[in-house]
């Protein structure tokens, strides 16, 4: 007699915990019941992300790089689970390698994107990149895992915290990713992942006054409306793409701070 497998309950990932949606609702995707997050879950996720921001940005770049590398390790070790829930092994490998690639940027992008500025007066003047804050990510539907990773990794490596809306039709890989993140030394709240209907969630994320930037990689017809909502607090709007990988993807979620100081005795 074959053994009946124990199924996993797919929940949200907020503040390092795995709660059900406060709405109590689910929707069926990839043959599973998946939490159908509500606007209040968006609110809670943003609150967690804001709460985690100081700690995450305050970690040394070396440390953040190691955490990102640890994510790659955790994913590699769960290769099969990921492959099953995403678009196959190839996609997972791509995603793992992406984490490794971005992990290596943690202590380098400031050297590439920052400048020292030779002003025409006796001042020491430099410009350094800093994280923009809390970033909302509307992840692309496809590829469900690597699409999310491609948008999440540059956000994280820059020291931002994130609230990501997972692929609507294929959310399981995102939750699987959440489980990897939870075991990868990523402080709670740095990444928050919501599953549910994009049309119900994205406007709340785009309009949230405590979200500093939003990546609309997975948005489509709703882009004009989301961009309009984003204007309310002058959000940085990024129309990300799942196939992009470069330090300029990191730069899109960075502010530049210029510091002046006189040179004297």
């Amino acid at each position, binding site marked *: 007699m074959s053994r009946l497998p124990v199924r996993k309950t797919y929940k949200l990932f907020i503040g390092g915990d795995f709660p059900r949606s406060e709405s109590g609702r689910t929707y069926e995707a990839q043959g599973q019941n998946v939490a159908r997050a509500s606007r209040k879950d968006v609110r809670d996720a943003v609150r967690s992300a804001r709460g985690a921001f100081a700690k995450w940005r305050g970690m040394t770049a070396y440390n953040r790089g190691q955490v990102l590398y640890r994510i790659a390790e955790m994913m590699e070790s769960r290769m099969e689970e990921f492959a099953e829930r995403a678009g196959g092994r190839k996609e997972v490998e791509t995603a793992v390698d992406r984490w490794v690639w971005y992990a290596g940027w943690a202590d380098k992008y400031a050297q590439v994107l920052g400048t020292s500025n030779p002003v025409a*007066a*006796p*001042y020491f003047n430099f410009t350094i990149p800093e994280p923009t804050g809390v970033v909302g990510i509307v992840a692309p539907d496809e590829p469900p895992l690597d699409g999310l990773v491609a948008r999440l990794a540059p956000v994280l490596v820059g020291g931002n915290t994130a609230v990501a809306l997972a692929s609507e039709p294929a959310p399981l890989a995102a939750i699987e990713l959440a489980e990897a993140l939870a075991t990868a030394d990523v402080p709670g709240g740095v990444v928050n992942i919501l599953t549910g209907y994009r049309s119900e969630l994205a406007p709340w994320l785009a309009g949230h006054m405590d979200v500093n930037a939003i990546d609309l990689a997975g948005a489509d017809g709703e882009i004009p409306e989301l961009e309009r909502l984003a204007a309310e607090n002058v959000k940085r709007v990024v129309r990300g793409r799942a196939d992009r990988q470069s330090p300029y993807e990191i730069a899109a979620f960075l502010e530049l701070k210029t510091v002046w100081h*006189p*040179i*004297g*005795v």
Partner: protein
Amino acid sequence: MAKAPALPSGFELPLEPRLPRIGSIDQVAVEERAAALARRSIKREAKRFALDMAVRMMDLTTLEGQDTPGKIAALTSKAIRPDPADASVPSVAAVCVYPNLVPAALERVRGSSVKVASVATAFPSGQSPTQVKVAEVREVVDMGAHEVDMVIDRGAFLSGRYAKVYDEIVQVKDACGEAHLKVILEVGELGTYDNVRRASLLAMAAGADFIKTSTGKLPQAATLPVTLVMLEAIRDVYHETGRKIGMKPAGGIRQAKQAVQYLVQLYETLGAEWLTPDLYRLGASTLLNDVLMQIRKEKTGRYQSPDYFTID
């Protein structure tokens, strides 16, 4: 180790973190402020006022090994009546000479408003024993000098023996009696504006009537920013204690235009109250003729030639 005696009346070293704490000076910012003030455009009657005031505030100076009674006679003549052709040009404030020339100078200025100032305290280095310096001061005061320009002991200051510097000023002040004491910091040797401020406060605390930038014996003498730093120290002391200390930039001020800039800085830092020879002097030897030329230019409308102004 030297021990600071009781502080002169009216001034106490700060116990609270309020002014005049020593504080510090930002070099770039103070130089920018001084440069900004120097860009004031002083025209017509305002310029005539300033030129007249510059003459009144001048300490006409000769401090050379070759100074003789004859030289002093010429200098004092010029001091009393700067422009022989124009009685409305005022006398300068004082002549500033070496101790040996004090009697000659006094002889010549008698009856005029011009004062005689003498440098003292092993001028310009200040590197002699304190009792020698004090004796020198007593000597020039006994001879009748109205003002004494002393130098601080930079060696002591730069090695951190502030009490020694302080003590010496206190003793010199005591030796001065009625004579006015100007304390020369020799800013060109102090290295930083922070030190200039520190030395300024030290000198004022010890009893200086005036603080003065330089001996004139170094290439780095008075500048606008260093004078500004000292004026601000004076302002802090005034604000805290009500004591009005005078200021004397000296050395390197050769052109009328510079003199006007110094007066603008004075006016905008300490206000109209300080626009008097009692509280401000310009130590200079060659400035006077340029100011006279400018005065005559203002009066005649013609640019002038040095050929028409005596070199004394």
